[in-house]
């Protein structure tokens, strides 16, 4: 049984068909890639799976339960963590607070604990702080834990977002262009961190990328999306040599 199954998902924005007949299977431990030109519908697919949009048609299963129609926080708590293409951090919070916040659904001290500062609350807050700190360690931002995120360099922000997504304890981690806007140095570091996260936490990763080098190096299987339709699916080599992909996507990149 696949970890995540997406079957024949189609989505319209008004009259615009953004995604057409999309299928996906993610197996435990896989790293899958999704590439495609600007406006192809990649982010829309992420938003459909994570519940921000409800698909016009189609089914989505996480393990054996359907997640179509669930609210985003329910989908997140049941095991799909994500980052955003244009960072969506909380601008008045520290790095540590970000990662602690993503433990929200696991907090059990409740309102009584929140209002009266019970010992149980202090214990639980200390626990999630410890977990948060080890995630910050993992993505190499531990020294910045007490900084407000607006003070941080760009590369660190992307890693904070990743730590935050990991704190939801996902079975599948969705990364929307994790290396967008990075300089070569930050890029290598990010790729190392993705590999390390994958190795240490043993989760499946589904990532959108624009840079071929990143997808080719990291992914087991790659889907190529053009105008909301998957035109090719295969290993990095197959994708690289597929004439339709070259025509629709790689060619364009060579030109620009």
């Amino acid at each position, binding site marked *: 049984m696949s970890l995540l199954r997406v079957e024949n998902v189609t989505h319209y924005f008004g009259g615009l068909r953004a995604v057409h007949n999309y299928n996906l299977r993610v197996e435990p431990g896989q790293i899958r890639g999704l590439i495609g030109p600007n406006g192809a519908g990649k982010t829309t697919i992420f938003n459909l799976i*994570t519940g*921000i949009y409800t698909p016009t048609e189609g089914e989505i299963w996480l393990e054996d339960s359907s997640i179509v129609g669930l*609210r*985003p*926080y329910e989908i*997140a*708590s049941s095991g799909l*963590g*994500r980052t*955003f293409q244009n960072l*969506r*951090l*909380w*601008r*008045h*919070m520290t790095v540590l*607070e970000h990662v*602690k*916040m*993503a*433990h*929200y*659904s*696991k*907090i059990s*001290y*409740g*309102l009584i*604990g*929140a*209002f*009266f*500062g019970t010992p149980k*609350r202090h214990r639980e*807050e200390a626990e*999630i702080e410890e977990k948060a700190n080890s995630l910050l360690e993992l993505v190499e931002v531990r020294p910045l834990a007490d900084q407000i995120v607006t003070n941080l360099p760009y590369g660190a922000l992307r890693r904070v977002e990743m730590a*935050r*997504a990991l*704190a*939801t304890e996902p079975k599948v981690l969705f990364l929307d262009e994790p290396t967008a806007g990075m300089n070569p140095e930050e890029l290598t570091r990010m790729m190392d961190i993705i590999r390390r996260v994958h190795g240490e936490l043993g989760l499946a990763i589904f990532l959108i990328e624009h840079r071929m080098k990143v997808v080719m190096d990291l992914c087991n299987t790659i889907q190529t999306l053009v105008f909301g339709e998957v035109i090719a699916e295969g290993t990095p080599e197959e994708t690289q040599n597929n004439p339709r992909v070259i025509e629709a996507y790689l060619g364009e990149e060579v030109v620009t």
Partner: protein
Amino acid sequence: MGVRTGVRSGELSTGRNRLGQLLNRIWAPFSQVPLLGWLLGALIAVALEQLLGTYLARILGMIKIPALFGFAIVLKDLALIPSAILYVLLIYVLPVAVIARLSASLANRLAAKLLSFPMWVSVIVHLGLLYAVLGLWAGVSDYRTLVARLTLIGIMLTLSLNVVNGYMGEFSCSHPGFMALGAYGASVFTMVAFVDDRAFGPPLLPPALGPFMFPTALIVGGATAALGATLVAIPSFRTRGDYLAIISLAFTFIVKSFIENLEVVGGPRGLGSQPDWANLPTVFVWTVLCLWIINNFVRSTLGKALNAVRDEEMAANAMTVNTRRTKMIAFLFAAFWAGVAGGLFAHVLRYINPGTFGLQKLAEVLAMVYFGGLNSVAGPIVGAVSFNLLGEALRPLEVYKWIIIPLLLIVVMIFRPTGLIAFREFDVKNLLEPKQKPEEEVEHVAAAR
């Protein structure tokens, strides 16, 4: 031209620097005074006022002790400016400064000692001192007691509205409505149960029980307000969008006209003769309770979810935060405290009518929130205290008061758009800590070098 302006702005900035240096130099001897020291100083000052205040006021040509630091007296008779200033200096500033400075090392040692026990010990000692200062100050006249109680109620209103307008970043206008629900809910409870009055007839329970049941009455008031809040919250938070401001404003008007048409509670004539149970200690204890619970909440991860919802709701949702539930809880929570404040308000004034809970009340609460500072606990205290004292002090100016206060608010908004003390955590331990290491230790370190 350009050069000249350059020179001038240069002079200006050195002027400002010099002022800053001067302030720093004045402040330096006091930088090591812990909160405990200030409280001791204030205690001596207010005790001094009890003993010598009337005497000194007479010598300085005033009829009685100036009620609020001499503002009102000065506005009535400008010739008394020097007397008022002298009074404030001699009774408050000088004793506080001298005692705080002289007792600094003792106070530091004491503060350190207190913190070696569980924290609540130190908290109780500080609160006890604070209450002693407030009680002695307010004990001088009934007027002061009234102002003190209304100010404390103002703090509760401001703190609770700040949960919605500051921490959660929505704009709610329903606080007067919640206050009205709390005021009427608590009043009806106490009057039906414990008071023989024209509106509700003989009491149901022995009146001697009354004061012990007053907390229940306030909780009933708070719960009434929270119930009303669900009517606002359900339509406002179901969908995304900025409906809350409109719906909550409408709510305030609806509550007002609902009560105006409710003859059982006196309709537009209002409801009077509530029992006199909201004395200064009671209001003080409830204010402290409100502050403690709100501060606990906003510092917990559950409470910080409000900030997440405010700053980036989609991300909050994707990080497992149940955003709708978070908003509902915060809104009902804020309404509850506005209701409790309303219940206290009714039992302080012992007369309420629907007109009290209209636009002017709204303007006052909003002003206190935005003046004091968003997303902060210290901010609302500063906002409510300064707004209430200013409002009372400027009372002799009558209508002009309503020109000066908004102008002040605009000035604050220009220089500090989020308010005086915004986006700051209220860390109790930090507040109570000694401001200086014990002297021996400092010497040891120096000797070791």
